[in-house]
């Protein structure tokens, strides 16, 4: 049963039980595998609830176009795209403004995670597609991309573990679904956050909604907790991939 109480301000104050009965700090069911695109240098698929991202990594290779080449370090070109059939209506093929912004913030995070100083004058091409979207797509993408980079054997400071935390009514929640995110009567706040877990570094952080400073602190803590769980899954998946390799 949905326990919804209207508060004095007209909007929902309490969000006592989540729509899908999860605990407030519980992630949706996750699946991860690597090597889904044999043609790519590295690839991975990451599914969390009904959100699924597939990432492929090509390179390091020659930089094209030449003018983005850097003499002292490599460059990353990362493109995020929501496939036309990934959302309830049809998403127009190609990148829109949202896709471009998300590509940019993902690239920013990867620039920290990958040791680019080791590959001057080279470029790494990354493509990530959302096949199914149910909120938290930029986080799922980043998680998939980081596994794909590890699969490709790129030198990395750490894996990136990303999750969307947030607030609905007065409750801090982890891994929001689309239904929760759109729940505007509750004043839903969405905070995508990405960590390099072993270094405690935040490499992606965005927010839209309404939170106080104290709530923000709690949301970040909650995000960290979720990221650690995802981090474990990432490591598990990669261990499996590399132990298979040694057998064959």
């Amino acid at each position, binding site marked *: 049963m949905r326990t919804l109480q209207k508060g004095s301000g007209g909007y929902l104050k309490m969000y006592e039980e989540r729509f899908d009965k999860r605990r407030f700090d519980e992630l949706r069911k996750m699946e991860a595998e690597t090597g889904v695109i044999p043609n790519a240098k590295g690839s991975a698929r990451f599914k969390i609830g009904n959100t699924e991202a597939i990432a492929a990594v090509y390179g390091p290779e020659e930089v094209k176009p030449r003018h983005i080449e850097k003499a002292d370090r490599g460059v990353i070109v990362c493109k995020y795209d929501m496939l036309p059939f990934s959302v309830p209506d049809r998403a127009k093929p190609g990148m829109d*403004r*949202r896709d*471009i*912004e998300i*590509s*940019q*913030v993902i690239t*920013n995070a990867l*620039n*920290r995670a990958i040791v680019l100083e080791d590959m001057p004058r080279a470029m790494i091409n990354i493509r990530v597609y959302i096949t199914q979207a149910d909120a938290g797509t930029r986080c799922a993408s980043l998680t998939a991309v980081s596994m794909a980079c590890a699969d490709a054997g790129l030198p990395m400071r750490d894996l990136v573990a990303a999750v969307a935390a947030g607030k609905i009514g007065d409750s801090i929640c982890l891994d929001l679904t689309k239904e929760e995110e759109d729940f505007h009567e509750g004043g839903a706040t969405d*905070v995508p956050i990405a960590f*390099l877990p072993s*270094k*405690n*570094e*935040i*490499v*992606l*952080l*965005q*927010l*839209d*909604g*309404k*939170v*106080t*400073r104290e709530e*923000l*602190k709690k949301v*970040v*803590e909650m995000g*960290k907790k979720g990221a650690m769980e995802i981090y474990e899954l990432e490591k598990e998946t990669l261990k499996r991939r590399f132990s298979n390799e040694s057998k064959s």
Partner: protein
Amino acid sequence: MTLENYNYMRELAEKKLRLDRRQEFEGRKITIKDNVINHSDGSAYVELGKTKVIAGVKVLNGTPFPDRQNEGALVVNVEASELASKYGEDRINYSIEVGRVTDRGIRESNLIDLTKLVIEEGKTVSFVYVDVVCLNNEGNLFDAANIAALRAILNTKYKIAGKEEIFTLPLNRENLAISHTFTKINGAIFFDPSAEEENVADARFTIGISEKINSLQKGGNGFFTPEEVDFCAGKAIELREERFKILMDNINS
């Protein structure tokens, strides 16, 4: 920028010093001119130090979106124009990022009550277009664009075709989400980065804050720790008062 200057600025930052001799959390001077564009319904020219932007608001009739029949719409666009300066990053991506962050702050704070922009239910609503163009980029376009957009929205007066009276936008003034941008250089955090500082910076952090925090955006290739995020949020809350005063200066209630 030469390597020598680059290293010099990063060394300065380590000692928490800035090239333009500002304090760590000292913002540059903000100058605002109202109604500079006579074809717009509301406009503002803002200088943040030497960063110059113009914002113009147009309110036009339109058909509502199918999923939001009883709401007007807000469209915010920021252009880091080619005449403003050379850009290190890709100019178009940068424009989109600034535009979307500016949009997010205004939208999520519910500054404009979109439900009051309905002219004929299900058929005609008002579309509020906010266009911000950067004329000279000397750093911190995020804050300059935000202040210009807010000020232009505040002084907007518009007519609706077929009606006599002059309207103002339905605003909740306590919900002005003012943007505060911090930069991290060599481990030190500064407020309101100049263009030179942006060039040598590791990371950027923009906080849009009204009564509560309405938007956050981390940018750049570096990182922030959870403690630094909290610290910046605290600083932004402190700094907001001053910017709020400047923003509301000479605005009749």
